[in-house]
Structures are given as C-alpha cells and as structure tokens.
C-alpha cells in the first residue's frame, strides 16, 4: 500500500482513523509527561507504574465484565497509584533502595495481575480474552468511544500540565528552592506523579503494560537532544510520541500478526537513534563533523600563524618560507600542503617562487587579528 493510499485510508477508514487518533493521543500525553519523568531521573518509575497497573486492569475487567476504556483506566490508575505509593513507602521506611523497591513492586504487582487474569480467563463470560492483548496492546480493537475517553482524560491531564507548568518545572530542577519560596512541593510532586500515572494508563489498551514505559522514556529522551528548554522539550516530546504512535499503530493495523505495542516501541526507538545521532549540538554525528571542522580550522590557523611568526623573526612581513619549514613547526605535518592550498584559495597566502610561500596583506591582517583575539601581545 502506497503512502497516499494510507493517507486516504486514514481519513476515510473508520478503524484506521480511530486507531491513529487513539495512538496520537497516547503519544502526546505520555510524551509530554515523560519529559518531566526523564528530567527528574524517574524514567523507570514509568516502567513500574505500567506493570503495576495490570492487577487494576484485571480487577476492573472482573468487576465490570466489559472492556470499555473508562473502568479499565480507573482500575489501572488506582493500581498504578498504589504501586507508586508502595515504592515510596518502602524507600522512606526501610533501607531498601529505590531500584530494588521499583523492581520488586513492579514484578510482584505484575505477578498478582497474572493471578487475577488467569482467574478471569476461567470465567465463562470472559470468552477468550487473550492475555497478550493486555500485555502488548491491540490498537485495532480501539473503538471511537475509547478514543473519546482517552482524549478527554488526556486533555484534562494536558490542561493541568499547562496550568501548573511553572510549579512542575521548579520540582524538576530545584525542589529546595521551590520549598524555600513557600510552594507545597510535596503536593506538587504528588500531582505530577498522578498525572504521570494517568498518562501511562490511557496508553495501556493500545501499547500494553509491558512496553508502555518506553512511551514515557523514549520520546522525552529523543526530545532532550534537540533543545535545552523544558517547555520546548515537552512540545517536541509530545510530537515525537504522536508521530511514533500513529506510525506504529497504523503499521500494526495494516499488517497481520504485528502486535501494536512492540511496533510503536520500535518506531519511537528509531526516532531516539536519529535524534542521538543527528541533533544539532548534542548529536554524535553532529559533534563528529564539528570536531572535524574545528581540527581543519586549527590546521589552517597554525600554518597562517606559523608563517606570520617566521616573518616576524625576519622583520619582514612578506618574507617567504618553504613548506618544509612549516611542516617541521606543525603538529600535523601531513596537513600543511593541503592547508597552504586552501589558504591560497582564500587569498591569505601566495606562492612567490615555486616552493616559497608568504603571507598576503590580508593574511597578515588576519593573523594579527587572530593573535589579538587569543590575547597575544607583543
């Protein structure tokens, strides 16, 4: 199927449109909240929350017998909340560290969720509710009503995020300062964590409990590479989340036996890799290129300044020298000839006789100004 056909189907096909809108919603909300989680070094809290939501999902299913979004989201949110509280209680009241508390709560809640799910599966009205639908999500099963629920809940989360942006920023960067300013930082912390829990649980139906954490970490980690400003990072992160959500969900809906959660994760991970490689200023490739250009500039400068230095020694600004002399002065003798050629093209040096090089007037002026910039005075 070509791209234009996919775009056409996105608008006309009910299922595909629903899936794309749902995945975009989850990507936007988890991306925006994920920015805060990543900045606060709580990336793995998302992992814990999404796993701990499983018993809540199972209980909600057990009690209501439906797969409608709202009960599942509420159940998941309560369980996710309890899991977070359990982690905090363990860390505060014992010598167990954050990592062990997270890992343990995650796995134990998940185990309890499995117990409930296997119990659910034995019930006659459950039908064949496949476990992997809960674990890895099934975007194609989304209904328009589910998307409405996600959009409304997610919208409320985003509005709260905007309203309290300043407070959350303070929490992420300088909690003590916030406290000294008289902000109730604990309340703000609880509010932000609650929003994170909600952001995670609205994605569970689509991405599944096992991989939802990636939707919190990855968009934010990618967005971090492109900016140093939190506000912009939140926007980019939401955008990346939406992009990966739509791409992954559509791919998975169009292909048979391609689970949604893992597909979305691979899409967002691709965005992470691209960002880490090519983002200006932080990207690996960008920095390599920058390093290469700087090295080249240093080679040019050193030849220029060496010529200038030699001329000064002879009390004649135009005194010519052979490349051999320059090579012996250089850190990188192999680059001297190349540098001379380039300087000649820029009109900074000229070859008076074959094998004899001297500064032009512009070259001399540039060398002087570079020395002044470096703070060298004579």
């Amino acid at each position, binding site marked *: 199927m070509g791209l234009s056909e996919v775009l056409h189907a996105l608008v006309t096909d009910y299922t595909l449109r629903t899936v794309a809108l749902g995945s975009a919603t989850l990507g936007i909300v988890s991306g925006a909240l994920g920015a805060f989680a990543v900045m606060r070094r709580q990336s*793995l809290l998302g992992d814990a929350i999404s796993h701990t939501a499983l018993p809540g999902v199972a209980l909600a299913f057990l009690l209501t017998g439906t797969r409608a979004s709202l009960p599942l989201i509420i159940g998941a949110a309560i369980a996710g909340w309890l899991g977070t509280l359990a982690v905090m209680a363990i860390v505060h*009241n014992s010598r167990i560290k954050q990592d062990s508390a997270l890992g343990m709560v995650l796995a134990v809640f998940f185990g309890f969720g499995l117990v409930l799910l296997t119990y659910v599966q034995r019930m006659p009205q459950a039908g064949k509710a496949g476990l992997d639908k809960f674990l890895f999500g099934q975007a194609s099963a989304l209904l328009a009503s589910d998307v409405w629920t996600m959009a409304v809940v997610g919208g409320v989360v985003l509005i709260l995020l905007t309203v309290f942006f300043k407070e959350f920023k303070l929490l992420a960067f300088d909690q003590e300062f916030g406290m000294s300013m008289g902000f109730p930082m604990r309340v703000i912390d609880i509010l932000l964590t609650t929003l994170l829990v909600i952001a995670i649980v609205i994605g569970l139906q689509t991405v599944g409990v096992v991989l939802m954490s990636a939707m919190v970490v990855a968009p934010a*980690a990618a967005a971090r590479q492109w900016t140093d400003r939190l506000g912009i990072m939140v926007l980019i992160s939401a955008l990346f989340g939406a992009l990966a959500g739509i791409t992954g969900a559509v791919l998975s809906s169009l292909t048979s036996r391609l689970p949604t959660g893992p597909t979305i994760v691979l899409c967002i991970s691709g965005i992470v890799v691209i960002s880490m490689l090519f983002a200006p200023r932080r990207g690996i490739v960008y920095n390599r290129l920058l390093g290469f250009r700087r090295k080249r500039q240093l080679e040019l400068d050193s030849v220029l300044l060496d010529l200038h230095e030699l001329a000064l020694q002879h009390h004649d600004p135009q005194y010519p020298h052979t490349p051999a002399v320059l090579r012996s002065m250089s850190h990188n003798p192999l680059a001297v000839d190349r540098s001379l050629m380039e300087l000649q093209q820029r009109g900074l040096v000229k070859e008076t006789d074959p094998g004899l090089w001297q500064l032009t007037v512009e070259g001399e002026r540039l060398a002087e100004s570079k020395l002044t910039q470096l703070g060298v005075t004579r």
Partner: protein
Amino acid sequence: MSSAQLEIQLIAAVVAAACALPGVFLVLRRMALLSDAISHAILLGIVLAFFVVEDLSSPFLVAAAAATGLLTVVLVEGLNRTKLVREDAAIGLVFPVLFSIGVILISRYAGDVHLDTDAVLLGELAFAPFNRFELGGLDLGPTALWLMGGVLLANVLLIVIFFKEYKLVAFDAGLAASLGFSPTVIHYLLMTQVSVTAVGAFDAVGSILVVALMIAPPATAYLLTDSLRRMILYSAVIGVLSAIGGYWVAHLLDVSIAGCMASTSGLLFAAAFLGAPQRGLLAKARRRRRQKWEFAVAMLAIHLFTHEDLPEAATECRVDHLTEHLNWTDQFADRVVELAVRSRQAMLENGLLRLTESGRRMARDAIVNWSPSA
C-alpha cells in the same frame, strides 16, 4: 501429592533459590533494575536461538540468550557513556527495543514454531514435568530440573569461590580496584550469572517474574540481617518458601503458578517490612515508644539531680509540681514517676521525689552524653 506435583515444587524451589543468589548482589549494588532489563531482553536471544535449534532446553539456546543479556548491559553502559541520556533512561531505552523485536518475531512466526508469547513471558511451570530428560532410555526426571539444578550449582560455586571479590565490589568498588580486583570483571561475571539464571528460569516462571524472584527474596533478607552470608542464606530460603507457598496457593485457586510465586514473595517482603525484628515498621514503632519513656525518665532524673539538696528542692521535686516544671500532663507525669520508681531510679516519700544512687548516675551520664558540647 502426585509425582508431577512434587516435581513442579522441586523445580520451582530450585529456580527460586538459583534466582535469589545473584539477586543478593544486585540488591546490594543497587542494580536491581538491570535484572528487569536483562530478563526482558533475553527474550530476543531465546527467540533467535529457538529459530535455529527449535528446542527450548538446548544449551545453545541458553548460551545465545545469556549473550543477549550481556549485550543489554553493554548497550546500557555504551548509551550511558555518550552522556546524552542518564543511566535510568538508558535502561529504559535499551530493553524495550530488544524485547519488542523478540515479541514481533514470535508473533510473526509463532504459527511456524512451537513458541508462544504467553509461555515465554509468563512461563508454564505446570507443563515442565512433561519435558523429560532421558539418557539411554532411562527417565532421569524433568529437563527443567536438570537445567536449573545446574544453574543453581554454578551460582553456588561462583559465589563460594568469588565470595571475597563479590563482597568487596558490592560494598567498596573503589577499594576493590585499588587492591587489584577489577570491578569490571566482577561486574560482568555477575551479569553473566544474572543472564544465565534468567534464561534458565524463564521457562518456568516467565521473563517478567524472574525479576520478582531475583529482587524480592534478597530485599526481604536485607531487612532481616546485617551479615552478607546470612543474607545469601536467608534469600535462598525465602525464595524457596515463596516458590512452594506460591505453588499451593495456585493449586488451590487454580491460577497462574508463577503469578502466585511472585505474589507470595511480595507478601513475605511485606511481612518482613512490617515485622522484621530490628528493621520492621512495628519494631521501629515499639523502639520509638520505649525511647520516649526512657527519655522522660532520664529527663526526670536530670530535673531532680539539678535541684537536689538545694533549698528549692521542696517545691521542685514534688510529684504534683512536675506538670508545671517539665510541662507534662498529670497522667504523663504519674506514668513517668511510676516507671522511675519501679526501675529504682528514684524514691517517693510523701509526694517528694529523691534520686537513688543509680538515678544520680543516670542523670550525670545523661547530661554528659546529651549536652550539645559533648
């Protein structure tokens, strides 16, 4: 109890003990979440190797999956070194990718091979006894038991042989390095152990609940003892208890065995969290209560000591004046006086309190020990 039931419990117990051993060092070294990453990522190794050998209990599969576990650690550290993301985010980025590839491969080709997502993720302990280890037509028991027995033995041996090194690296990596023990080598040895154990255990409990068995028993043991040897021993015992307890709960309710094992390990942790002799919440609350009264008695002794043999003693040391001088309620004052008299720190004569010799000593000690200048 049928022989299959016995075998299942035996396998569960061996798996739990094998997981708990490396788990102790993960908990101590604050690397618990690496086990989460490794146990998820080995899925990819298992799937890839399974496509080649088509046998879930082949040693080749174990080796390939363990290699994926190590690859995860290398990738996390590599990502960390770029300084573009922090360590927690690095873990959170790496394992979902490897895991996702594994899940997609299973889903795409599951029809062609006998491997399904539920079994790999959640394990199916109930089926473990069907896979027999036979040698020359002789039935030697379930393959899983042999596999995990081997892993358990290897873990025990490694920890016994490298006990000193592991201990040193766990508590003071800097010292270990300066003494010539490479923390990196020990780190990768531990990570290999975690990977191999997770691979061996996934068959029985699935790749997610391996984390529960690796973290919960050592965390529980950590609340019970301050000795590394005891912590290792307790972890193994708690792991085995979780396994067998979990099996019976699952049997009674007819639900997931692995889920019940994880839940039981969580319950055991909760029990220790509340009731551990020294570090439990209850013990702490009781200690605080006791200290409150001890402090009050000491305060009374200091008060009496300060005014002893002075003219104002007649008013200051009266029981019914304590409410005024120490700002205590009547009830509280009566209780403190009763405690002080019963522990023979003070004597009561006609409503007037007098210190005994031991009370005087206590007051003097208290002043020396608690004064800000001391």
